[in-house]
């Protein structure tokens, strides 16, 4: 470590969007798209930011470049804080840090020629000499593998891969030190992807460019990046050198993400992960560890002896009652009624049948394998069948509470070797 | 927010819109030169009387003496209670004159609206489903024709052809017949041309919109999915395409169709001599009967406000995606 400050440093970056409802447009909540992330990029280094859609990675990309105003946190380039108060300083930052977008088609104004669009940053930054702009455009286009004559073409005359190259030219023409690429290849075909990534790698070496690569595709990150940060619901759950994170993931989410990627080799057996459900809404993130509602390794309570599958289903049922949409008891009664052998009116369906229907509705096993737990679940189901959803949720919280849902996990080191060490944010690492 | 809340808000907004329009109308009226006053002053001057006194007497009679806000309140109150003023030229209350004329207008507008809605949507959908076929081109051309032909001129030409030359329909509209025997064949005969002229522009306009909107859906993935399910073309047309098409169409239909019908009926009545609202309004304008002009203008305006309200509600009913808090 040296005293020199890193090229780009983001601390505790947050971006909350207000949710407004009602007659007076009152702010009734916040979508916490990015909720306190840290990121450091050195010169010539590529850092990946991965996660599922809706995890906030694209918002993070736009916010760290102040394209969108962050709600909180500090952003430093070469150690100098970047704020929107100082306009000339912000403008200089805009020149030194560039954003590359996902959609190569949408990122060009259909009414301007490619050359015009690529030259636009020059004009914005005060280069009034048209001929000089033209010269720079020509040389930059050929450096990204396009023909100088492409400058006179219009976006509709270029293929997707060519447009993404032109977009790269536009991002580079101001000679930036940092490039934030937001899903730069996800709209492209596989063979074009390979090309664009190779180009990106080459330019990084040539220009000593710091890169933040935002992607949902772990393979792309592995190909380009030195370090990676895994995001889930606005937070970074694991980060470190690419090999270390991908070879020995410390967070169940990273593990699940890695296991989900199809391997292009038919001889490799697929790793099965029990990652159910989808990313919850960022307007109302789960308490404690945000991943606990989907986590395949959520820590069970010590009071009951449940096997993993049964426990996770009970936990999911609990989360569903706490956070999910309202339970349509009438529909469940009607379903139970149509299911019972002699046709019965929905109102006359016996309670046990309703409970059976509820078990089925919430994917609960018919037997938990632990009498004490079974009794608690029965009571909870009875309360739910009686329409007392909150009471049922309370009961489950008292009996089946887990540290994952109650406390936010701390950051722990993963991996022994000092050079390869990375960090993960998970309760499973608490004991160590 | 639910549908009820949304409905309440739309109704309230319609009230506000009506109120604003009435206020603007009042202001316009108040600041515009009053032709009646000018006439009275001219007459007074011509007969050697004092023009000033005559004007005051006129103002007194009209109730134009109080301060502005007082007159404004009175104006609103009168409108609300159904006292729409006195028609000098017809020597009867404005509302009575309007109610007398209204049936004649409805007699041909209602069939025209019904026809144009049904036919317009049907042809539009069919055309969209058979895009680039001869039928589609023909329908599109007819639509252009209908949208572009000036209906007053079209009416004249049709009258010349079918009434004057061929004698199939009467040249003059028989109001007496229409009043006493509205459901007779003879009445139907004299209404054919007005309905046709009004219908042409309305069908054309509806059809164009219906076609354009349906085109958004005939190649939609969900239509393909329905076909993959084994749904028949008829079912796809009537269930899968019609319903989503109606959503944007409902917003265009009421507003645009209403505009077309209201203005076109005005001209149609003038051409065919139907003593409906349009003729009443025109007479009022020609004879400078301001109270009646106001009355006959407010009717279509209020109809339009109501139409807009219906359109918003129809939209909410048709589209499950609507965000009730949005508007």
């Amino acid at each position, binding site marked *: 470590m040296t005293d020199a400050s890193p090229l780009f440093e983001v601390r505790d970056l947050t971006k909350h969007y207000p949710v407004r409802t009602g007659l007076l447009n009152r702010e009734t909540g916040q979508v916490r798209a990015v909720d306190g992330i840290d990121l450091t990029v050195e010169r010539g280094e590529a850092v990946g930011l991965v996660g599922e859609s809706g995890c906030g990675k694209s918002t993070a990309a736009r916010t760290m470049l102040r394209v969108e105003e962050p709600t909180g946190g500090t952003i430093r380039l070469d150690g100098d804080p970047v704020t929107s108060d100082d306009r000339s300083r912000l403008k200089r930052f805009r020149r030194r840090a*560039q954003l590359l977008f996902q959609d190569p*088609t949408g*990122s060009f104004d*259909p009414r301007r*020629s490619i050359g015009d669009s690529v030259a636009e940053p020059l004009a914005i930054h005060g280069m009034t*000499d048209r*001929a*000089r702009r033209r010269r720079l455009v020509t040389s930059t286009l050929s450096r990204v593998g396009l023909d100088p004559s492409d400058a006179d073409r219009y976006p509709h005359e270029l293929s997707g891969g060519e447009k993404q190259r032109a977009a790269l030219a536009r991002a580079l023409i101001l000679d930036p030190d940092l490039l934030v690429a937001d899903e730069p290849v996800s709209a492209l075909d596989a063979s074009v992807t390979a090309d664009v990534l190779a180009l990106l790698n080459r330019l990084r070496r040539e220009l000593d460019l710091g890169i933040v690569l935002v992607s949902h595709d772990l393979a792309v990150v592995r190909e380009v990046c030195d370090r990676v940060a895994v995001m889930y619901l606005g937070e970074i759950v694991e980060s470190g050198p690419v090999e270390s994170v991908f070879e020995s993931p410390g967070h169940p989410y990273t593990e699940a993400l890695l296991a989900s990627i199809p391997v292009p080799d038919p001889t490799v057996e697929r790793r099965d992960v029990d990652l159910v459900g989808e990313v919850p809404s960022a307007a109302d993130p789960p308490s404690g560890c945000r991943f606990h509602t989907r986590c395949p390794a959520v820590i069970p309570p010590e009071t009951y002896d449940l096997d993993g599958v049964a426990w996770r289903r009970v936990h999911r049922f609990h989360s569903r009652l706490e956070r999910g949409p309202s339970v349509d008891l009438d529909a469940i009664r009607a379903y139970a009624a149509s299911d019972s052998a002699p046709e019965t009116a929905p109102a006359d369906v016996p309670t046990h049948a309703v409970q059976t229907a509820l078990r089925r509705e919430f994917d609960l096993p018919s037997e938990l394998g632990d009498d004490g737990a079974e009794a608690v679940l029965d009571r909870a189901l009875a309360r739910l069948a009686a329409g007392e959803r909150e009471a049922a949720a309370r009961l489950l919280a008292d009996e089946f509470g887990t540290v994952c849902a109650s406390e936010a996990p701390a950051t722990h080191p993963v991996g022994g070797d000092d050079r390869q060490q990375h960090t993960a944010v998970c309760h499973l690492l608490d004991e160590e | 927010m639910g549908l009820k809340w949304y409905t309440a808000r739309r109704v309230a907004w319609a009230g506000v819109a009506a109120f604003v329009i009435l206020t603007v109308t009042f202001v316009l009226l108040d600041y515009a030169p009053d032709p009646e006053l000018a006439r009275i002053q001219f007459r007074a001057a011509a007969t050697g009387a004092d023009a000033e006194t005559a004007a005051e007497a006129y103002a007194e009679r009209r109730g134009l003496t109080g301060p502005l806000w007082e007159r404004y309140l009175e104006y609103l109150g009168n409108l609300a209670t159904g006292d729409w003023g006195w028609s000098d030229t017809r020597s009867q209350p404005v509302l009575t004159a309007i109610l007398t004329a209204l049936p004649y207008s409805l007699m041909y507008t209602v069939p025209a609206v019904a026809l144009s809605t049904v036919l317009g949507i049907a042809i539009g959908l069919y055309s969209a489903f058979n895009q680039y076929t001869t039928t589609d081109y023909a329908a599109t051309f007819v639509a252009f024709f209908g949208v572009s032909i000036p209906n007053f001129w079209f009416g004249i030409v049709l009258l010349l052809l079918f009434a004057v030359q061929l004698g199939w329909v009467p040249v003059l509209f028989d109001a007496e017949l229409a009043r006493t025997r509205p459901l007779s064949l003879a009445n139907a005969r004299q209404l054919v041309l007005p309905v046709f002229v009004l219908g042409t522009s309305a069908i054309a306009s509806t059809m164009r919109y219906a076609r354009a909107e349906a085109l958004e859906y005939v190649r939609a993935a969900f239509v393909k999915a329905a076909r993959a399910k084994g749904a028949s073309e008829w079912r796809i047309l009537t269930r899968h395409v019609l319903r989503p098409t109606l959503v944007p169409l409902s917003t265009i239909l009421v507003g645009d169709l209403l505009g077309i019908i209201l*203005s076109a009926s005005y001209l149609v009545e003038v051409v065919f001599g139907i003593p409906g609202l349009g003729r009443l309004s025109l007479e009022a304008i020609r004879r400078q009967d301001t109270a009646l002009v106001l009355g006959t203008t407010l009717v279509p305006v209020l109809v339009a406000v109501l139409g807009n309200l219906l359109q918003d509600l129809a939209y909410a009913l048709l589209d499950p995606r609507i965000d009730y808090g949005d508007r």
Partner: protein
Amino acid sequence: MIGAEDSPGTGTDDSQPADGGEPPSERFEDVDWASIDADGGGRSPLRLAALVAAGSYGLAVASDRLVAGGDPTIDVAFGGVAFVWDATAVDWLFVATLSVLVFALVPLARNRRLVAYYWRRFRRHRPAVLSLAYLLVIFLLGTVGTLFLDPPALDVAAAYQPPVFLSVDASIPTECVGPVVEGRCQGTWRYPLGTTADGKGLLALAIFGMRVSMQVGLIATLISITIATAVGATAAYAGGWIDEALMRYVDIQQTFPTFFLFLFLAYLYGGSLFVLIVIFGVTGWGGIARIVRSEALQRSEETYVAAARSAGASGPFVVWRHVVPNVSNSIVTAATLNIPVLILSEAALSFIGLGNVTLPSWGQTIAAGRGDLATAWWVSTVPGLFLFATILAFNFLGDALRDALDPRQEVGR
């Protein structure tokens, strides 16, 4: 501008000593941004030209109104032909409209490649191409032609002449100008389209009607789109309560059925052409404003706007360089489809007698011939056909433009 040599204004380019030689391949790393930051900006000759044009226009109007008074604005004679033109208020508005149109065409001339692309897409619509040609003829006849033609004159002796190649019972015209063959009066080339009850030539009436229609359609539409663009763009850009208030106002204005608004205002304030155009222009922009607003909102969500902003572009820069040009497609289409509505409205108002009765408007002529349908059918028919064809042509044109300029089809394939 295009292809300009290295301008001396930016001679701070020390790092490039070899200037003027072989085309230098400057690399972006070599740019000395500190010196560029210290530099200023330039100005556009187009803007200068617009300024000069606007200035001279203002002076001309002032001199006509204040100095010339009732005298003709232009009174010159060359050769044997006297050229006298007393510009009215409407004429001045028309001149302004046409100059704005000319300036709107300049950016088109600059982007030949793009224009060619749009033209290829437009050309696919044959009826629209025909319409465009027809409208150009109508436009030229109405604007330039009327300057050199005598207005249709009263000539009772020549009443009810049939159009050329056609004939009518000899008893109908007061006096048959052409030959009478077998008791039928033949039309002549003197009145190719026949005459009215006053003996006015229908061809001349039709041509002067073109001027009225073009004036109404173009001026009022220009007023409308100017207001609409300002309101729509403001609403989209400002957002919040300004947006809310503006759009609510548009709601109310849109609720008022346009025709009755015209009717009511024409009744209250008289139906002179000037008043009519102003009423049309000032009240007819609601729909276009909505389009502009929603388009502007959509465009500002586009990635290319985000790209410009992330490169450091200011709000106004983005609006002017990206949002307005991309919304202009929709404005052009909406304006083209707005024109026929206005022409039709003017004709309808003239038809029912609410217009200026002395004006040779098509609606006026149709109304005048209404009583003579059975005998002199051509009096109503000729202007009716022109009216119909013009409206049809605008509709075809607008439809094809919508198709050709549709931004959704422009992006990708």
